């Protein structure tokens, strides 16, 4: 009885935080640089593969601490890729038409997929969940996997940290200022290009980190790059085009609606995410949180 109502909510929250963790770096880069990074999924995948290799090297069962450290290491490695990508590509996209951004980042997606195929091959791999997260919590007839609880907590934590930085720190206020008027920031003596480079590195770090954190949940194949991309774009748009709080709320809204919808209409699972997205865009085309960037 309990499970009938709460289980879709729990599952919805789990997928919401998976999508949110995936979408944070994408949202940050779009919010500040106005570059829609099609390659985000590719670098998420790279993070997952790097974490997978690290897990193999360590061997045996992972503790929660080493699982987190492996994810952070994957994030740092992908962050370095971000530094290179910024120098070679993103820096050149600042003053050109948006169409070039789409083409350039799509090409980058293809390159990252090719790199993964070249290094790890095309066969499927999977990593096991750390045994500390392998059990489940049972309340009445509601079964909640510990890994899912852990991911929900991480998603909320990630949101809380980003929100606190944006609202209450000097760096966060600077980020919002640069997002709203980078031209004036330059006039006031702020090194805007260097600031942008940092944002790209942080955005890529978040992509790699998410890849590592979600590794136990995924089957690794070169298709992983595109698994969450469409949902993440949906969340980005419904949230208000580059607003972290909006992306967080949109993830929850769309995924929970989808989760309940898939119970009622079980013959078309997953479609309610898009139905909810379409309705939201008709009702509030400016997004959940409009006007304020980040």
């Amino acid at each position, binding site marked *: 009885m309990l499970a009938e109502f709460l289980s879709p909510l729990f599952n919805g929250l789990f997928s919401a935080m998976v999508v949110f963790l995936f979408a944070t770096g994408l949202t940050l880069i779009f919010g500040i640089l106005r570059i829609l990074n099609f390659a985000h999924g590719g670098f998420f995948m790279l993070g997952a593969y790097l974490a997978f290799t690290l897990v193999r090297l360590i061997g045996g069962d992972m503790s929660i601490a080493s699982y987190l450290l492996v994810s952070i290491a994957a994030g740092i490695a992908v962050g370095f890729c971000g530094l290179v990508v910024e120098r070679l590509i993103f820096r050149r996209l600042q003053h050109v038409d948006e169409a070039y951004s789409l083409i350039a980042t799509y090409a980058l997606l293809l390159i990252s997929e090719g790199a993964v195929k070249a290094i790890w091959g095309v066969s499927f791999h999977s990593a096991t969940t750390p045994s500390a997260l392998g059990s489940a919590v049972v309340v009445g007839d509601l079964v909640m996997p510990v890994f899912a609880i852990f991911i929900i907590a991480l998603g909320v934590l990630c949101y809380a940290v980003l929100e606190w930085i944006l609202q209450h720190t000097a760096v966060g206020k600077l980020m919002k200022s640069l997002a709203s008027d980078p031209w004036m*920031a330059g006039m006031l003596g702020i090194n805007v290009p260097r600031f942008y480079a940092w944002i790209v590195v942080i955005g890529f770090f978040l992509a790699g980190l998410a890849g590592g954190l979600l590794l136990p949940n995924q089957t690794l194949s070169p298709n992983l790059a595109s698994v969450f991309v469409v949902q993440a774009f949906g969340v980005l748009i419904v949230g208000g085009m580059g607003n972290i709080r909006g992306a967080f709320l949109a993830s929850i809204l769309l995924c929970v609606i989808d989760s309940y919808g898939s119970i009622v209409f079980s013959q078309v699972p997953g479609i309610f995410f898009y139905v909810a997205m379409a309705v939201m865009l008709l009702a509030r085309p400016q997004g959940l949180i409009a006007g304020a960037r980040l």
Partner: protein
Amino acid sequence: MLDVGPLDAFYGDSHIVQNVSITIGDGEGVAILGRNGVGKSTLFKSIMNGGPRVDGPIRLRGEDITGLPSFARARRGLGFVPEDRRIYPHLTVAENIAMGGHAARADRPPYTLEDIFGFFPLLRDLQTRRGFELSGGQQQLLAIARAIYGRPDCLLLDEPTEGLAPVIVEDLARQINAFRAANGTACLIAEQNVRFARTCTERLYLIDSGVIVFSGTWAEFDAQADLQQRYLAV
């Protein structure tokens, strides 16, 4: 102190600023007068490298700053107030002022907020207000305060009186003059308001269709009665 040109500036194929040369001495106040659309803002943006394609040298304190990005020019001592002010709406007055501190040079710390409130007492009572809660006159005052916070050698004000009530314009002139008298900051002001420009500067350039058509002191300007009629009257 600031030597500009001869300079040409373009937006796309439009040749907006043509062969313009201006100089500003240490601590000097200079006005650039001209009607709407004659290239005043484009000239200012060219000096800051803030948009137009620019061809020609710009020297600041003898140092060639041609080719430097905007932020580097700000850090070398140019404090710029654009025509549209561009106050950050989500930041408070105090936070907006502090944004100007990024331009402070390593060897010269920015003013303190207390200094700024000394120059512009009105801002003291507004310091916790957010940018979007300010009137046009308050925004203009704040934009100037933000530009001087980093202790620039030269202040560039693009049409500071645009859209302000006459009584506020008078106030603004008084405060700018008091600040400059106390700190020896040079100032370049683009204006259509002749009275305001005259109060704040010692000499002027007259610009029309991107070309300088007159340069001299206010006395010399007054001696040629037709200038105002030809180049400024609407």
